[in-house]
């Protein structure tokens, strides 16, 4: 009897230690992801599907690079820039990497200040993140222009060597750049929502009809960090390999 009463009054979201906790969560009624905001669970499911999309691209890149009999262009030279009279290998991509990592840092800080309910600092950090993201897309546009206009690389042809290089380059960096661009747009939307005080007043979202909270900034952050995460793999496999 006492046991039954205890079971009824116990917090159903109480985390048991170790594997029994995982099993209890997954075997529980209605909710597997306890104490996780619905927006976070949904963005994680989206990110897993996006992981598979980018993995398909990178695996496709691996197969065409392994199977081509034409020489693969040396990315170190292709993406070199002449600065102050010196030719520096891969420098543009290195700068892009640092810009994207910095934007990830400011995003992480924005999430933190959001949970502190610091409206102004959260807004400013989100705006800096958006600006760094826009700078990244700008440098990518420069890189594409250089490759298309000066080198004559096309998705179906490549004067520097294997034509597969062109196909893979435009497909992978294009898809990633699209993700960054969409991220910049959403960063601005979330920043404006924060500045207006939507989260402080818990106004109802125009699409969800649910009260908006600072968890929304974390959901935005998860997407943005994911875009940075994908770049880590593209940088390693496409540019450095």
């Amino acid at each position: 009897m006492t046991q039954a009463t205890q079971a009824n009054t116990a917090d159903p979201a109480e985390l048991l230690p170790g594997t029994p906790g995982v099993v209890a969560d997954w075997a529980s009624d209605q909710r597997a992801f306890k104490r996780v905001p619905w927006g976070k669970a949904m963005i994680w499911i989206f990110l897993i599907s996006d992981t598979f999309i980018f993995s398909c691209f990178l695996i496709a890149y691996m197969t065409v690079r392994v199977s081509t009999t034409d020489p693969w262009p040396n990315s170190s030279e292709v993406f070199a820039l002449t600065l102050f009279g010196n030719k520096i290998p891969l420098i543009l991509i290195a700068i892009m990497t640092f810009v994207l990592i910095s934007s990830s840092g400011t995003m992480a800080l924005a999430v933190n200040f959001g949970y502190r309910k610091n409206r102004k600092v959260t807004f400013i950090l989100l705006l800096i993140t958006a600006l760094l993201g826009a700078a990244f897309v700008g440098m990518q546009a420069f890189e594409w222009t250089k490759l298309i206009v000066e080198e004559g690389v096309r998705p179906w042809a490549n004067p520097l060597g294997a034509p597969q290089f062109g196909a893979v380059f435009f497909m992978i960096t294009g898809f990633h750049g699209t993700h960054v661009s969409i991220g910049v747009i959403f960063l601005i939307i979330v920043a404006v929502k924060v500045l207006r005080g939507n989260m402080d007043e818990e106004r109802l979202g125009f699409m969800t009809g649910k009260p908006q909270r600072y968890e929304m900034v974390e959901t935005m952050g998860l997407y943005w960090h994911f875009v940075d995460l994908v770049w880590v793999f593209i940088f390693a496999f496409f540019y450095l390999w």
Partner: protein
Amino acid sequence: MAQTEAQQHPLGVYFKIWALLFILSAASYMVDYFQFEGWIRWFLIVIFMLLKAGLIVAVFMHMIWERFALVYAVIVPPLLLIVFVGIGALEADHTFFTRDIFFSPNNFVIEEHH
């Protein structure tokens, strides 16, 4: 609304990880700058890549503070990709092998029957 756990951590954690990500990125760029070649190059690239990815997912994406029910749901499915990479590598090797034979005429021995 069910109680949710806000991800509230000291700021210092983020600055440390940020600095580490900068160092690791600089290190992977140095692999290219100093033109490391062969297995040491692939090894260093993959190590730095995995460390960076791990730090981003674990700290910036708050994975180390999430309940394991969510952590496993996110980490386990992508592990299947390793099988996909293996299949892709096998097939690509075979394609290269057949192309290598097909595109080099010297490899063909045309037997003349008398």
